[in-house]
């Protein structure tokens, strides 16, 4: 009966109820929309970062990442590869030689990061093959072909077929060694660093040049099953310290990117709390107006045997009913607004943020847990907003309320 009473009371002033519901609903829409865009942006950034070169995880010898020492190759490679093969969620892997080197042409020289890759393996991991804008991608694990970024090509005034010399220190003696390559393709990834200072060559050729036959600096990994955050559902077990290898997820390889997604969650929580608090104050005001308007009526209700707690519950139920109406309206509006942006997206292409360049439009992306959390948050804050009016009603003396009769 109290719930029925609350529900009917709510609709006595339809305009006011709809306006209040709309205020809560718009708050909910704002939260859901902002959140889906933030999730979409994070997903986009993580995808860009993990699709380009990094992969979802990388294995190195301990110390390689800091020192970039050509001698620091993965220890017990066969055992490491065996471990990778057994993992069911591993979609692709790329075994790489990575070395700092000097690229020279008739137009000059530039320090570059050279990557020796198996083109077939690398194709499944990064998008260099798709990023080729001129010429062609590498076609063999050995050979003298080389591809590089368009900015580097511009700087060295290179054209397809040009001869290039790569100079680097070998792993045995540390002596500088040179190898002649021919430019077969130019790529444009959109990543400033890669386009300006990275070259890809056949892995076996680079291994031979650096006297690293059978050895590998880096294994980049791609998983098939990822969480919505872009982390693997079932990541590989980290190697023991005794193996002297390390296996790092992208969250560890690029902590700034991971931090951004964590900060986004925190800032959304703060923003949501502030937004809903402002809305809650408005709802408190509306409920108080309703309470004062019906003071005599509540006096009658209390005088005929409704306990203070039962009377307060009428107010709380009114808030819950208002909350539910708002949630339904808010969810419908939120789905409509986000559906619009799912179709059209927001174009941030080419803009770099935290070391990652947006390659595609940003589309809203749902986190189902949030679609549950935000409606509960708005219901919670609506209920919070009703606490003061409910307390007033609880404390209200029926005899005083009966004196407030409107004639």
């Amino acid at each position, binding site marked *: *009966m109290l719930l*029925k*009473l609350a529900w*009917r*009371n709510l609709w*006595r002033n339809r305009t006011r109820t709809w306006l209040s519901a709309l205020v809560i609903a718009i708050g909910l829409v704002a939260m859901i929309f902002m959140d889906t865009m933030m999730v979409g942006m994070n997903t986009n950034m993580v995808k860009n970062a993990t699709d380009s070169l990094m992969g979802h995880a990388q294995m190195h010898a301990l110390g390689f990442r800091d020192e970039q020492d050509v001698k620091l190759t993965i220890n017990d490679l066969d055992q490491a590869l065996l471990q990778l093969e057994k993992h069911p969620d591993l979609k692709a892997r790329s075994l790489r030689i990575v070395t700092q080197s000097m690229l020279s042409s008739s137009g000059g020289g530039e320090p570059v990061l050279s990557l020796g890759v198996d083109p077939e393996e690398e194709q499944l991991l990064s998008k260099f093959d798709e990023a080729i804008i001129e010429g062609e991608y590498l076609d063999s694990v050995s050979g003298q072909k080389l591809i590089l970024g368009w900015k580097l090509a511009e700087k060295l005034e290179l054209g397809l077929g040009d001869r290039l010399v790569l100079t680097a220190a070998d792993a045995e003696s540390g002596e500088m060694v040179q190898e002649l390559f021919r430019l077969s393709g130019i790529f444009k990834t959109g990543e400033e660093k890669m386009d300006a200072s990275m070259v890809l060559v056949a892995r076996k050729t680079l291994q031979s040049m650096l006297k690293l036959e059978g050895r590998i600096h880096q294994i980049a990994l791609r998983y098939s099953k990822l969480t919505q955050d872009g982390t693997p559902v079932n990541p590989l077990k980290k190697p023991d310290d005794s193996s002297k290898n390390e296996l790092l997820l992208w969250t560890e390889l690029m902590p700034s990117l991971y931090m951004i997604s964590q900060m986004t969650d925190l800032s959304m929580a703060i923003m949501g709390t502030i937004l809903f608090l402002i809305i809650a104050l408005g709802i408190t005001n509306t409920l108080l107006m309703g309470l004062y308007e019906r003071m005599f*009526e509540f006096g*009658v*209700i*209390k*005088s*005929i*045997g*409704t*306990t*203070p*707690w*039962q009377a307060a519950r009428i107010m709380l139920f009114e808030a819950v009913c208002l909350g539910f109406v708002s949630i339904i309206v808010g969810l419908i509006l939120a789905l409509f607004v986000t559906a619009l942006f799912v179709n059209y997206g927001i174009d941030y292409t080419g803009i770099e943020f935290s070391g990652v360049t947006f390659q595609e439009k940003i589309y809203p992306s749902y986190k189902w847990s949030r679609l549950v959390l935000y409606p509960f948050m708005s219901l919670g804050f609506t209920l919070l907003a009703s606490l003061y009016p409910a307390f007033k009603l609880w404390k209200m*003396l*029926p*005899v005083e309320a*009966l004196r407030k009769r409107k004639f």
Partner: protein
Amino acid sequence: MEETVIVAHKIFKAFGEGETEIQALRNVDLGIKRGDFAAIVGPSGSGKTTLLNILCGLDNVSSGEIKVSGRSLQEMSGSELAQFRREHIGLVFQAYNLIPVLTVLENIEYVMLLQHVPAADRKERVHTFLAELGLEGKENKFPAELSGGQQQRVAIARAMVSKPDIILADEPTANLDSETGGQLLEMMRKFNEELKMTFVFSTHDPQIMERAKRLITLTDGRIVSDELK
């Protein structure tokens, strides 16, 4: 000997403090017996409504003691008083005191719902009263769809349906024309005689005074006469 359902002993009630203090009730002693049909009369400001509010625990006394159905009202908390009124006291106010968003049926069964009366019993009692008060067919109407007299009959049904020990009515005919008021009074008198229900009115209405079995006259917060007719 008939049981006394209300005992008021040396009741004082003051509003305000210091120079603005007004003595609404002064040294009131009153006993209401089961089956009484009593009217508290007196000029405006004599303390009739205040006394009625105190008798049902809606207002506190400044000093003195009130016992209703053997229980001291001063010792009860707000929640206990509400439950006590629900079980023992039926209240009838001036007109337009129904809950506007509830239908006639829901208004009448409201108190029984709070009392957790089983649905079948509730239904039977509601329909009995609807028939007695000539409200059949109005069950699903909202108060705004009824005349003043019909609304007051619903209010009487609501007060009586839970079978309280006593019905307190504050000027129940004040907003009704004399014919409708007379009909309502006849009904209440009938319930008083047939069901032995106790009624206490505060009123100016000569019709009530005429039908009352007992007239209690208040002047300036004092009982100046208490006569059985």
